[in-house]
C-alpha cells in the first residue's frame, strides 16, 4: 500500500464529508460547554444565547454522536476501501449517499434549531418531534447504507482478483463496521418509519411506547460499536506503525472485528434493566452476552500494548517499563500517535465503567444518573472522538496536500482533551453515585440555593465536572484552530491518499476469523435467541398506547 492518487470526485466527497460535520461540530461542542455551565448553576436560566437548555442538549447529542460520527465513518470507509483495494470507486453510490446524508442532516437540523424537536438524540416517544426530524434521520441512515452498498461490488472484485489472499485487515474492519451498522439500523428504521413518522404526521393517534423503546435499544447498543469500530481500525492498522513497530497479532484484529459482528446487537436490553415490560430472564441473558462483548476489547488492550512495546523496543527501549519512554508521545511528524494513545488511555476507564454498567443489578445504582454521561464520554468522547478528529485532520492533510498547521500545538491537544475528560468524568462519576440525574437543567433546581430542591452536597462534584468541561472546550478550540488552519493554508505538496500501514508481527492463519460468513450466521442466530421472546412478551402484555403529547403543559391541564 502506497500513496495513491485518487479520483477527483471521490476526493471531493471525502473532503465534504469531513468539513461539513466539522462546521456543525463547532455548535455541538459549544452546546457541550453550555451543558456543564447550566448544570453547575453558572448559567441559571431556561435558555442562553437563544438556545433553550434541552434544545441545546438535543443538538449536542445529535451533532456529536450521530451526525459527526456517521459522516466520518463513511468518509473513512471510502478512504480505506479506495486505499487498500486500489480499485476505482463506484461514484454513483458515493454521490447519492453524500447527498442523502446531507439533506437528511439539514432536514433534522431545522426542527432541532427551531425548538420543534427537543426530544434529545434518543427521541423516546411519546416525546414528539416535527416529522422533518424523523425523516431527516431516515435519510441520514439510508445515505450511509448506500455508501456501504457501493463498496460491496468493489470488494467482491478484489476477492476474485486475489484468490487465497487475506483481506486487508483495515477492509475487514470497515466491513465489520458497516455490517454492525446495517444490523443496528434496521430496528430503528422500523421504529421511525412504522411507529414515529405516522404518529408525528397525525396518521396514527398513539404509539406503543414499550415496543418503541425495545426497537430503539436494539439499535442503541450496536450503534456504539459502529462508533468504536473505525477507531479500532485505526488502532490495529495505524498505531503499531506509528509506534515504530508491527501489529503484534493479525489474528487478534480479525477476531475482534468478527466477534463484534456477532455480539454487538443481541445485548441491547442492558440499556433497559430498570424498565417494566421485560422479564428478568431476558435481562439476564442480555447481561451475559454483554459481558462476552468485553472479551475482544480486553484482547485489543493486550495486543495494542504488545504492539507498542514491540515498536518501542525496536527504537531502543529497554527494561520492564523503561521502553515506554521511547514511544513518540510528542513527535510532531507522528502526531497521530498521541491522539490514538490518549484515546486508549481514556478507554481503560470507559471500559471498566462499561463492565460496571453491564453488571445487571449494579446498574440500579447508576442508571440515568450523571455516572452514565461520565462513562460514555470516556468511550465515545474518548477513543472514538479522538480517533475521529485525528482521522479528519489526517484525511484533509493528505488529500489536499497540506502540512499540519501549528504542529507544536497539535501534539498537545489530545493530552489536554484527556485531562479535560478525566476531570469532567470524575465529577460526574461522583455526582452520579450521589444520585445526580443526567439530562437535567440542574442550575434551576438541584444546584440553585433558592430552590426547595437545592442539594448542597452535589455542588462540589458539579464544580469538578464543570472545570473538566472547560478544559475539554479549550482543547477543542485549539483543535479547530489547527484543523481550519490546515484546511485553508497554502498547498505544500500534491494531494493524494496516504495512510500509515502496519505490518503484522505474528501473521497467524486462522480460517475461522477470515470469513464473514460464519459470523453473520452467528449474529442472526444470536439475535433470534436474544430478541424473539422479549418481543413476544411485549405482544402478550398488550400495553395500551401513550396518551396524547403536549410539550407545554401537563396532559391533564391541556385542551
Amino acid at each position, binding site marked *: 500500500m502506497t500513496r495513491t492518487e485518487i479520483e477527483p470526485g471521490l476526493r471531493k466527497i471525502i473532503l465534504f464529508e469531513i468539513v461539513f460535520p466539522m462546521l456543525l461540530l463547532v455548535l455541538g461542542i459549544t452546546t457541550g460547554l453550555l451543558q456543564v455551565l447550566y448544570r453547575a448553576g453558572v448559567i441559571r436560566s431556561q435558555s442562553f444565547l437563544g438556545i433553550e437548555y434541552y434544545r441545546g442538549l438535543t443538538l449536542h447529542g445529535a451533532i456529536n454522536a450521530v451526525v459527526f460520527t456517521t459522516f466520518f465513518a463513511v468518509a473513512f470507509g471510502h478512504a480505506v476501501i479506495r486505499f487498500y483495494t486500489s480499485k476505482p470507486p463506484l461514484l454513483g453510490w458515493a454521490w447519492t449517499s453524500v447527498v442523502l446524508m446531507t439533506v437528511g442532516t439539514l432536514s433534522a437540523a431545522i426542527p432541532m434549531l427551531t425548538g420543534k424537536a427537543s426530544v434529545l438524540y434518543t427521541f423516546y416517544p411519546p416525546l414528539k418531534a416535527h416529522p422533518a426530524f424523523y425523516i431527516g434521520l431516515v435519510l441520514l441512515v439510508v445515505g450511509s447504507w448506500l455508501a456501504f452498498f457501493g463498496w460491496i461490488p468493489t470488494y467482491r472484485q478484489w476477492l476474485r482478483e486475489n484468490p487465497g489472499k487475506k483481506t486487508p485487515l483495515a477492509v475487514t474492519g470497515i466491513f465489520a463496521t458497516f455490517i454492525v451498522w446495517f444490523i443496528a439500523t434496521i430496528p430503528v428504521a422500523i421504529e421511525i418509519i412504522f411507529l414515529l413518522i405516522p404518529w408525528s404526521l397525525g396518521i396514527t393517534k398513539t404509539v406503543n411506547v414499550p415496543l418503541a423503546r425495545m426497537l430503539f435499544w436494539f439499535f442503541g447498543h450496536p450503534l456504539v460499536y459502529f462508533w468504536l469500530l473505525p477507531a479500532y481500525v485505526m488502532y490495529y492498522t495505524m498505531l503499531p506503525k506509528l509506534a515504530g513497530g508491527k501489529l503484534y497479532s493479525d489474528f487478534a484484529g480479525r477476531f475482534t472485528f468478527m466477534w463484534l459482528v456477532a455480539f454487538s446487537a443481541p445485548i441491547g436490553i442492558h440499556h433497559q434493566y430498570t424498565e417494566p415490560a421485560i422479564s428478568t430472564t431476558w435481562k439476564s441473558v442480555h447481561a451475559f452476552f454483554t459481558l462476552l462483548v468485553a472479551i475482544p476489547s480486553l*484482547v485489543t488492550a493486550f495486543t495494542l500494548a504488545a504492539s507498542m512495546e514491540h515498536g518501542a523496543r525496536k527504537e531502543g527501549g529497554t527494561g520492564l517499563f523503561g521502553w515506554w519512554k521511547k514511544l513518540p508521545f510528542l513527535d510532531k511528524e507522528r502526531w497521530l500517535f498521541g491522539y490514538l494513545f490518549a484515546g486508549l488511555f481514556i478507554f481503560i476507564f470507559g471500559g471498566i465503567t462499561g463492565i460496571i454498567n453491564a*453488571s445487571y443489578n449494579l446498574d440500579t445504582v447508576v442508571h440515568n444518573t450523571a455516572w452514565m454521561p461520565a462513562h460514555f464520554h470516556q468511550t465515545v468522547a474518548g477513543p472514538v472522538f479522538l480517533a475521529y478528529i485525528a482521522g479528519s485532520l489526517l484525511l484533509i492533510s493528505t488529500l489536499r496536500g497540506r502540512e499540519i498547521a501549528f504542529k507544536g500545538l497539535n501534539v498537545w491537544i489530545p493530552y489536554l482533551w484527556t485531562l479535560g475528560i478525566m476531570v469532567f468524568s470524575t465529577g460526574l462519576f461522583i455526582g452520579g453515585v450521589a444520585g445526580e440525574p443526567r439530562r437535567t437543567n440542574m442550575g434551576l433546581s438541584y444546584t440553585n440555593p433558592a430552590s426547595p430542591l437545592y442539594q448542597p452536597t452535589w455542588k462540589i462534584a458539579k464544580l469538578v465536572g464543570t472545570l473538566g468541561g472547560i478544559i475539554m472546550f479549550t482543547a477543542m478550540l485549539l483543535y479547530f484552530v489547527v484543523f481550519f488552519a490546515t484546511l485553508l493554508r497554502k498547498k505544500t505538496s500534491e494531494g493524494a491518499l496516504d495512510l500509515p500501514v502496519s505490518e503484522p508481527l505474528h501473521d497467524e492463519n486462522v480460517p475461522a476469523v477470515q470469513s464473514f460468513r460464519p459470523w453473520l450466521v452467528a449474529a442472526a442466530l444470536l439475535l433470534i435467541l436474544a430478541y424473539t421472546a422479549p418481543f413476544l412478551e411485549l405482544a402478550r402484555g398488550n400495553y395500551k398506547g401513550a396518551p396524547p403529547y403536549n410539550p407545554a403543559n401537563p396532559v*391533564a391541564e391541556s385542551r
Partner: protein
Amino acid sequence: MLEKRILAAATIFALSIAGVIALSVRLFGIDLPTCLTDVRPFADAKVIEQGAKHYEVHYVAKMWKFEPADLNVVPGSTVDIYLSSADVTHGMQIVGTNVNLMAVPGAVNYARVKFDRAGEYLVVCNEYCGIQHHNMAGRIHVTDRSQLPPPVPAPPMPSSGKELLDKYGCTACHSLDGTPAPGPTFKGLYGSQRKLADGQSVTATDDYLKESIEKPDAKIVKGFDPVMPSMTIPPADLHAIIEYLETIK
C-alpha cells in the same frame, strides 16, 4: 501462542463477573424489576397501609410531579412501589436506595424497598420528560409515627359511582366540573346532544354511554382524539357509573 492465552484469560474474566452477578442474585436476592402483566396501568396515586410496617404505594409520574409528592412512613418500613406514567416516559430514583425505575406509559413498574434509616429521601425524575424536567421531584419522609400526620386508612371497596370513576381511572381524562381535559367532561353529559366527529349528532342515553365506555372508538365526539382504551367493567359497576353520571348536571 500468547494471543490465544490472552483470549482465554479474557473469557475467564468475563465469565467470572457473570458468576459473581448470578451469586448476588441467588444469595442476596438483589434483582432487577421484571415484567408485570397482572397490574393495569393506573391514573390515581394511592398509599395503602398493608400492615404495621408495610405499605403499598401506587406512584403516578406525570409532567412534572410525582404523586404522592410526599410519602410518610415509619423507620423499618417495607414499601412496595408500583409506578405508572400518566404522560411521557419518566424515571424515578429514590436517592440513597437501590430504587431506580423507568416510568413507561402503558406499563407498570415495581420495586420493593425497606427504609431502615430515618430521614428524608429525595425522589428524583432521572429521565428527560420536557422543559420542566429539572423540577420534577418528590420526597419520602421516614419518621416515627408520633411525628406523623394521622395515617391514611386503606380505602374501602368502592361502591358509589364517583368512587368507581376514580377506581377505573375515568377521572384522569374526564372532569366532573366542566374543566377542559383530554376527554369530554362528565358535567351535563347525561341526556345532552353530542356532536360527533363524523358530523352526526346523538343523544347521550344509557345505551350511548355504555357503548362509549366499552367501545370508545365507535362514536367520537367532535374535537376529541380516539385515545380512550376499551373498558371491561362488571354490569353492576357500569350501572352505578351511569346512574351517577345522570346526577352531574
